[in-house]
């Protein structure tokens, strides 16, 4: 072989390799925490959902805007009483090992989810299914009593306890993903290990280095693989947001799923249009212990709420422009429309403070008799900044605030025990429906940290959830929300925003209220 031939062959091989590498589009995503598992029934975090939703697919899945669309089911019917859902599975759907996905795999997965032996953290999200809660509590031991039946391999019937208008949204949640019965039964707990795991989503995991990353590649057995623009993704573990931003700037990440808020102004100037700050289905709020005087007095709670200058918190204290919250359900929540607002929402701030002083004076407090309040929050710079700012906003009312911080687990442990006077809390929606927020104020619910209790409110939430007409349901819920706001059941402060940084190379990234962005909808420029 002469020199020219050698050079020619070498160039051809190199060219081919480069052509392949140019076509291979791998998305590098900064994903925050380490996934607890790849088993969808053992997850609880949004960083885990990003991976699970790429490698598994439920009956219903989400489009780029997070709207429900057919997933493994091609269609469904709902019985007139709203309790029985019948799903027709797509033809030819397969697990990544080529085995067919059947209705039996969904039955198996949902039975496993509610089986108390498996201790799934999030089993309660599917308690709307008939007998799910009773099985989970051990009151029913026969798993076949769960309201999920395979009529045949292609037809699945799910019966609910009550009509649940948000059920299709709940099916998008990872707790409703199917599991490969044939692999779980053959491999036991190890079914989820790389090398054993088979999945039914657009991608499949091929590598997991705990503390570093999870790598996925296209699942050739998925029905829409030919339309996928991204060949695979690497989900990187990195909780230090400053370090993550540096790696993004160095081109090592294509998407950051969070960023340090104090860098937002810098990013707007230096990384124009790359930082995506968008409304998110979540609420930052303070609870007030309604069982403990003087906070049991509605006037005290309302005075505290009115004196919070919400307009400065998002833009000035956080710096990322979070919108002030005057409702309990964030605007844009599905099945609801415009939420209810506090009656004093549009008053100028000085009038709000004047009214708050009056309310507090009526309740017996003022500069001569200061109200002592302990404000607790979990250790975090932003929580601290907000607490300090709010304490200073309350000072002119004659409220003497003692700030107490504790690590997250201790803080929430104390909140659940009712050991706080005023406590910081937050809620991110599990499913896109007002019930997910309104339920936080129902009597006896664990997350009702302020222990506010109103039988009328409880009844309205119950009635709303039994109503199948979505319009009527929204009206009932709105009345309930108005009641809670009039009573100052808790103090909404701001609506969360999602904070992503997306490289200009990435296309198809659509901001949405649940901050869910599946890789299947994305593409990368050459």
């Amino acid at each position, binding site marked *: 072989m002469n020199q020219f031939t050698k050079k020619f062959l070498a160039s051809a091989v190199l060219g081919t390799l480069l052509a392949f590498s140019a076509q291979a589009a791998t998305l590098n995503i900064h994903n925050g925490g380490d996934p607890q598992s790849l088993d969808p029934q053992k997850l609880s975090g949004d960083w885990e959902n990003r991976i699970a939703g790429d490698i598994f697919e439920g009956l219903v899945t989400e489009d780029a805007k997070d709207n429900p669309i057919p997933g493994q089911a091609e269609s469904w019917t709902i019985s007139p009483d709203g309790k029985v859902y019948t799903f027709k599975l797509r033809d030819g759907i397969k697990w990544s090992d080529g085995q067919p996905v059947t209705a039996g795999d969904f039955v198996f997965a949902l039975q496993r989810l509610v089986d108390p032996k498996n201790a799934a953290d999030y089993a309660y999200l599917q308690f709307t299914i008939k007998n799910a809660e009773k099985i989970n509590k051990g009151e029913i031991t026969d798993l076949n009593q769960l309201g999920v039946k395979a009529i045949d391999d292609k037809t699945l019937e799910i019966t609910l306890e009550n009509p649940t208008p948000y059920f299709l949204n709940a099916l998008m949640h990872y707790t409703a993903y199917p599991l490969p019965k044939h692999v779980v039964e053959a491999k036991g707990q190890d079914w989820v290990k790389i090398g054993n795991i088979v999945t039914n989503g657009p991608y499949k995991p091929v590598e997991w*280095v705990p503390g570093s990353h999870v790598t996925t590649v296209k699942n050739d057995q998925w029905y829409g693989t030919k339309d996928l623009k991204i060949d695979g993704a690497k989900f990187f573990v990195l909780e230090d947001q*400053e370090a993550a931003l540096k790696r993004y700037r160095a081109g090592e990440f294509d998407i950051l799923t969070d960023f340090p808020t104090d860098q937002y102004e810098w990013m707007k100037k230096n990384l124009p249009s790359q930082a995506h700050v968008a409304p998110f289905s979540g609420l930052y709020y303070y609870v007030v212990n309604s069982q403990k005087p003087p906070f049991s007095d509605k006037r005290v709670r309302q005075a505290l709420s009115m004196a919070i200058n919400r307009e400065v918190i998002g833009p000035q204290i956080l710096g990322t422009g979070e919108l002030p919250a005057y409702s309990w359900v964030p605007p844009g929540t599905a099945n609801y429309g415009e939420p209810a607002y506090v009656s004093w929402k549009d008053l100028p701030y000085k009038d709000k403070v004047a009214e708050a002083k009056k309310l507090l004076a009526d309740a017996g407090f003022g500069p001569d008799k200061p109200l002592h309040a302990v404000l607790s929050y979990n250790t975090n710079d932003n929580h601290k900044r907000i607490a300090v700012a709010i304490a200073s906003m309350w000072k002119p009312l004659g409220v003497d605030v003692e700030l107490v911080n504790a690590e997250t687990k201790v803080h929430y442990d104390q909140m659940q025990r009712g050991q706080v006077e005023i406590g910081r809390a937050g809620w991110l929606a599990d499913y896109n429906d007002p019930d997910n927020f309104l339920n936080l104020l129902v009597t006896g619910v664990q997350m009702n940290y302020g222990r506010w209790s109103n039988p009328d409110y409880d009844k309205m939430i119950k009635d709303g959830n039994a109503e199948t007409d979505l319009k009527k349901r929204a009206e009932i819920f709105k009345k309930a929300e108005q009641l809670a706001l009039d009573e100052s059941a808790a103090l909404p402060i701001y609506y969360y925003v999602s904070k992503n940084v997306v490289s200009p190379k990435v296309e198809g990234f659509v901001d949405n209220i649940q901050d869910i962005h599946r890789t299947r909808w994305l593409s990368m420029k050459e």
Partner: protein
Amino acid sequence: MIKYALRRLLSTIPVMWIAVTASFFVLRLAPGGPFDGERPLPPVILKNLAAHYNLDKPLIQQYLLYVGDLLKGDLGPSFSSEDFSVAQQIMIGLPYTFTIGTAAFLLAILVGVTVGCFGALYQNKAPDYILGSLVLIGVVLPNFLIAPILQLIFGIHLAWFPVGGWGDGSLKFLVLPIVVLALPHAGRISRITRGSMIEVMNQNFIRTAKAKGIGPRLTVMRHALKPAMMPVVSYLGPAASYLLTGSLVVESIFGLPGIGRYFVNAALNRDYGMVLGTVIFYMVLIVFLNLLVDIAYAWLDPKVRNR
């Protein structure tokens, strides 16, 4: 010597047992449990989880079960990582931590001893001041400050090295974390070496060597270095255990999958199994490293060997 080492080894068993027992109970006394969080779980789920992890049993029974498993070599499950047991996680993270830690250890010795010797030989002269000041930066500035500075300069502006991650494990990914980890120890070793070397260089046997006409380099290499290393070796035990266990900040900033991050994460998550597992692992490691230092000390100093 072997008898001495064995005796030392056996004497650590009660210490380790006390440490495990204390860690077990102190951890359980801490407020907040492994399943508390922003999203409280319903009582029925908590009950199922408690049963799954034996947390529904009396504390003393939990302790006996744990110690029983431990004697069989089982470190138990991790509460926050269900797909890997505690032992599996430690084994996965160890090669990363070990690679970085060992490289940083060797670099710290090489740089520290060299700079220290130069400092002693050029005492109170320009090289002493310049090199001494440079290595002192590593001691004075904490690594959570140095790391981002190096990331900015060498990762973003000059683009010589990746800003973080393990990548394929090639040297370019490891240079920055190794340097950041090694710097403070290099500084301390250089100060100890310098001081010790100055002391040795003023002793009679060095003066005799000089009087015989041996050049300064040979005097240092052949006669002064070994005795001057005694205090350095004493420092190497704690330094090695720190480098292998205390790389938490470096691993976090550079996004490395080592075990340095496990302990704090596990403690914050109340992951009882993982905290105890890492405590036991670190104890064994420290005992082993201290033993190695003792052996090295005995090799350097015949008085210790014959004790």
